[in-house]
């Protein structure tokens, strides 16, 4: 590792440490450092975190995905509809992931076959998936039947008090951690991961080296879609409602988490664990702002500022290197 890449890896850690310190010292934020708060903040990170796993692959490959929020909403509605039809929680989860994956495959096909820029292709999917969510839900939120919540075990996925208690975090948090570790390994060590990074660094060179760009890109966007689909399932578990207007604008939170985590929007750089720290930092920031009684606009300005700061530090480091 060069000193530059060590700094890059440390950046989200430093950011997270600063946020934790500031609020831990803040007189009005009692309970911020409590075990309970740590548990709920971890839970609140799940949806952005899961989506950020997929988004890291996309951003490292030099792409972007604006359709995450719509895909999450669509899969949360699919999940609720499957549960309403009494097919059980497992099938609901599979359907939600499948719905997300289909959207991802379409994104990938649009980008490779139609040669549309990722920004535009996923902007199209943002509208298509959101519209589809409203369509299949009949333009209404879909309530999950009570039977599926308790005995069916849907609510347990995102419960702040997991059963058994020694789990400590909700199953949703553990799923996110596990997936993040696998994805981090795949991106760093596997052939597929090397191809993803190569495409993001220099697509022409990657093509000359014999990497099958189209196939890899379709795989990247399908993985991201599946991650968003799983996030949709978790959202449905948390809200106990499939809501076609949910997760509006969440794609920006996801991109922010990835960028704060050290990825470069120019491609070729970034890591899954960094993105997780970025997501965690934003969740802690939001939690701290609520506890100190800051107005919501303060939170929005702060997160915006932090994104700009994180990226400008990245640019400065690169110029020096």
């Amino acid at each position, binding site marked *: 590792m060069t000193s530059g890449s060590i700094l890059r890896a440390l950046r989200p850690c430093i950011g997270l440490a600063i946020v934790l310190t500031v609020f831990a010292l803040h007189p009005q934020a009692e309970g911020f450092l409590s075990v309970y708060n740590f548990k709920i903040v971890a839970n609140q990170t799940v949806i952005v975190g899961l989506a950020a796993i997929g988004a890291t692959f996309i951003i490292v490959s030099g792409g972007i995905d604006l359709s995450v929020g719509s895909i999450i909403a669509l899969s949360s509605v699919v999940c609720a509809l499957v549960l309403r039809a009494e097919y059980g929680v497992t099938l609901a989860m599979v359907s939600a992931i499948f719905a997300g994956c289909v959207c991802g495959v379409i994104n990938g096909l649009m980008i490779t076959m139609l040669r549309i820029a990722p920004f535009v292709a996923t902007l199209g999917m943002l509208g298509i998936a959101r519209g589809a969510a409203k369509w299949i839900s009949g333009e209404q939120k879909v309530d999950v039947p009570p039977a599926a919540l308790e005995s069916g075990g849907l609510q347990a996925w995102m419960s702040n008090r997991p059963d058994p208690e020694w789990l400590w975090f909700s199953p949703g948090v553990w799923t996110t951690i596990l997936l993040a570790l696998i994805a981090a390994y795949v991106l760093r060590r596997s052939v597929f991961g090397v191809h993803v990074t190569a495409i993001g660094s220099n697509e022409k060179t990657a093509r000359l080296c014999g990497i099958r760009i189209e196939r890899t890109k379709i795989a990247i966007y399908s993985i991201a879609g599946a991650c968003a689909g799983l996030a949709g399932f978790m959202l449905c578990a948390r809200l106990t409602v499939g809501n076609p207007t949910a997760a509006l604008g969440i794609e920006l939170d996801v991109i922010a988490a990835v960028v704060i985590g050290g990825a470069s929007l120019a491609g070729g750089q970034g890591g899954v664990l960094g993105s997780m720290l970025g997501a965690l930092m934003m969740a802690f920031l939001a939690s701290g702002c609520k506890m100190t009684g800051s107005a919501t606009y303060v939170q929005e300005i702060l997160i915006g*500022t932090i994104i700009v700061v994180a990226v400008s530090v990245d640019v400065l480091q690169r110029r020096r290197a």
Partner: protein
Amino acid sequence: MVAVSFACIAMGTACSPSPDKTGSGSGDQATKARRIAVIPKGTTHEFWKSIHAGALAAGRELGVEILWQGPIKEDDRNAQIDVVESFLAKKVDGIVIAPLDDKALARPLREASEAGIPVVVIDSNVAWDGRKSFIATDNYKGGTLCADALATKLGGKGKVAMLRYIEGSASTEERERGFLEAMANHPGIEIASSNQRGGATTASAVSASETLLGRFGDLQGVFCPNESVTFGMLRALQDSGKAGSIVLVGFDASPKLVEGLAKREIEALAIQDPVKMGELGVRRIVDVLEGRDVPARIDTGVTLVTADSMNEPANARLLDPDLSILDK
């Protein structure tokens, strides 16, 4: 980077409005003031500012600290759950909340109650019976008042329409149901249309109103169940030159609607009392904390205001609530 982020976070928290500290009575200065969380559906609408003002006034009088925090994204259920959970971690003494969703908020509120934090629900109901009290407008009654006012103005006969708000909004659907059922008592009135919707935004309400007015050229009266739809209808009536000749009865107030009322382009507005809602929410939660019984349901009332009655002091207060307490 360290310095810059630190500075901006410090600045952000420093310039944020500090929670309203109210001196408790001289007797119990040793004990810390109770902290009551008041959670609206959003923070930018006038309606929620009125609730905030009412809650602050009650907090000041009773010597409790009011922690006001809305969801970061307006109308985002997930964001509102985040707020409830943060207050649980902060261990507030009580929660007053206007839930964004009758189902989605049930779990976090139940968790609050199980953690020993009592919950009073205001404005919209929640599908959970552990709440200590539900304080809101009787929307059904509001709808019937509007129907009667419209029928009386038309002399008991004529052709009217109702333009609904969006699907799934419990409060407006109650108003719509109240209107239709009360209209059944006026056999001379024909309801030409009652299945069209104005949608969520003012822009969609204007287009829906234009379509409705174009389709039924001989309408004599219209009822709209909330602020945005009433405003959309008012704009459409003004545009087509029919403002004042078609009798418009609406719900809620805004400066533009009050102006329309004064110019008699709107016959009547049904006005809720959000200041009272915020105030009673805080009062009842303090009652619960001090071991007093509270009623399960409290109606904060609907008042029908017309151009003639709008300047009476009680009505003027409803149309233009005193929010100066928010600036202190």
